[in-house]
């Protein structure tokens, strides 16, 4: 297993570098000049061309693109992922600052989605063609179809404004000088739930389908014939088998999770990578965009690897 993981990671290295190169080129192809993108229309009206040229040369934008690429790769190899155009700091610092909140939000949302999705899917399979089954299919389909920005605003409207149960955004209460852990969880729940809702649908669908196949299997009858209680049969024997194909689904959904973060973090003022992405694209902050694309690629690669490892952990027939 360890050698497999090592091998997979080694194979990923050229892939990731390829992604780096391609994303660098694509980002360069974005229309619009990073210097002007930072200026308001009013400033643009009065900024002298010298100022703009000066800024461009400070950022190295006046050099040929391959020189820029070489300089940037040099920065990447030093581990700081380049320098931000907008803020005068290494990109690595900016990402490091934001990755924690994003990880907390993403992991919580993923966990919520998994727990709810797997439970709903399992019970839908057990009660195939019942009202519960139909209801869970329809609601999970709806959950996938509702755009998450709408869902986010609805959630804010209902839970924050009308009911006043949750705060509308941010990571902590500002007035409290020393916010408690509880306060942070309180701020986390709503964005995590909204993010989770978009993920639940596929989990329900795949768990249900997988579970339907599994509970028809002979070993389920065997377990019942041994006298094992039904729920123990389902969760002890069925679920683990049903989860094996789900690992792949989770890995495939990682990009959906990442785009969801982009929207949800913006709506809920969550200071994570998603918001940074949004701001960086609007500001044509090339180094940050490329770095985020790169980090996302790393995430996708890692999650796929994790999916394989998890599948192997769940299924002894798979050897890594």
């Amino acid at each position, binding site marked *: 297993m360890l050698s497999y993981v090592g091998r997979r990671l080694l194979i990923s290295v050229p892939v990731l570098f390829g992604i780096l190169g391609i994303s660098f080129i694509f980002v360069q192809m974005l229309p619009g000049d990073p210097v002007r993108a930072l200026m308001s229309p009013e400033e643009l009206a009065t900024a002298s061309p010298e100022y703009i040229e000066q800024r461009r040369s400070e950022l190295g934008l006046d050099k040929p693109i391959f020189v820029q690429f070489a300089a940037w790769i040099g920065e990447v190899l030093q581990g700081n992922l380049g320098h931000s155009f907008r803020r005068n700091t290494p990109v690595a610092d900016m990402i490091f600052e934001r990755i924690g909140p994003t990880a907390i939000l993403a992991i919580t949302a993923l966990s919520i989605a998994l727990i709810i999705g797997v439970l709903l899917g399992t019970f839908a399979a057990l009660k*195939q063609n019942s009202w519960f089954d139909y209801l869970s299919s329809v609601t999970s389909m709806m959950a996938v179809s509702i755009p998450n920005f709408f869902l986010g605003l609805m959630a804010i409207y209902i839970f924050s404004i009308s009911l006043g149960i949750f705060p509308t955004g941010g990571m902590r209460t500002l007035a409290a000088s020393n916010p408690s852990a509880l306060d942070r969880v309180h701020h986390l729940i709503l964005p995590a739930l909204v993010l989770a809702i978009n993920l639940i649908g596929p989990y329900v669908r795949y768990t249900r389908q997988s579970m339907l196949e599994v509970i028809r*299997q*002979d*070993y389920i*009858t*065997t*377990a*019942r*014939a*041994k*006298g*094992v*209680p*039904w729920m123990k049969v389902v969760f*002890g*024997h069925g679920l*683990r*088998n049903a989860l*094996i194909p789900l690992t792949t689904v989770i890995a495939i959904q990682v990009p959906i999770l990442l785009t969801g973060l982009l929207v949800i973090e913006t709506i809920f003022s969550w200071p994570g990578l998603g918001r940074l992405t949004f701001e960086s694209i609007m500001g044509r902050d090339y180094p940050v965009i490329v770095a985020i694309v790169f980090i996302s690629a790393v995430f996708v690669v890692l999650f796929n690897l994790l999916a394989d490892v998890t599948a192997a952990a*769940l*299924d*002894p*027939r798979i050897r890594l």
Partner: protein
Amino acid sequence: MNEMAEAREKRGAEREPLLSVRDLSVSLRSDEGLVQAVRNIGWDIYDGEVLAIVGESGSGKSVSVNTLLGLMRQDVAIVNSGHAEFGGRDLLNLGERELREVRGKDISVIFQDPMASFNPVKTIGDQISEAIRVHDERATRRWAWSRSITLLSMVGVPNPELRCKQYPHQYSGGMRQRAMIAMAMANRPRLLIADEPTTALDMTIQAQIIDVLRLVQKETGGAIVLITHDLGLVAELADRVLVMYAGKIVESAGVVELFASPRHPYTRALLESLPRIGDQSDELRSISGQMPSLVELPEGCAFHPRCSLSHDRQLCRELEPPLQETNSGSERLSACHFSRELDELDIFDR
């Protein structure tokens, strides 16, 4: 209808049957409609006895047994009528919880396909241990594990300590079936149901498994219901045989009498289809025609369209024959209007 009641009374109740099935009818939902899988059958099994239930696939032999343990899918199988008395209780009237206590403890099942019947993601040791612990709250994990090792060694699995830690896919087919038998006997059940226990195995392995089953019976002293379409296995193991056709028992006899002189044209056809030593033909004989659809059964005797004896007689077409004694006072039962004609037609060169 209770065809066997009379016969049983005649035989005399010198001992109580271990399991007594009466008037069992089961329908299955299918896309074509309701399938009359089991129609008003009844049978008894006694301690220490090996009862074989024989029939083609679809004859209802597995359904009739799985129904007793509530192992049929509830959305598919409907028990229309029946009683199954076991240890003073009617299995068909037990709640899920009570039935669960019977399953795997008093009555165990050995399934046909040992590959599919083991959970692929759990070790064999875990699965045998589970069978033990689910019926014995006091059994510790460690104790159940060591008992699993003992059971595996009893059924002839070499190196059982290691084998316990292995997964089903690491076992060969024969070893898996041994492990399945070990799991079934974990709680020394009084009744073992072996559902096509050798079908998925090749010939040499079959013989070994038959030996293991014999051993198990000797060990537990319990009874075995052997569900099979393999008459060779029946001859090897069974004491008594029920022949099922289209959801009904068509013949019941001791194993020797049955092979010597079948009293139902279907049984005879089954025996004829057996390959015989000295037979020059490579052709496998089979019974001509197909089993009728159990959704729309023919009028009269269900076997009459395929029957070599019926000669399209009106009685066969119109009246379904009851299961009755072939000779008065005999323990042999047959459901054929013209079972006596089979005496005259002794086609066996034995």
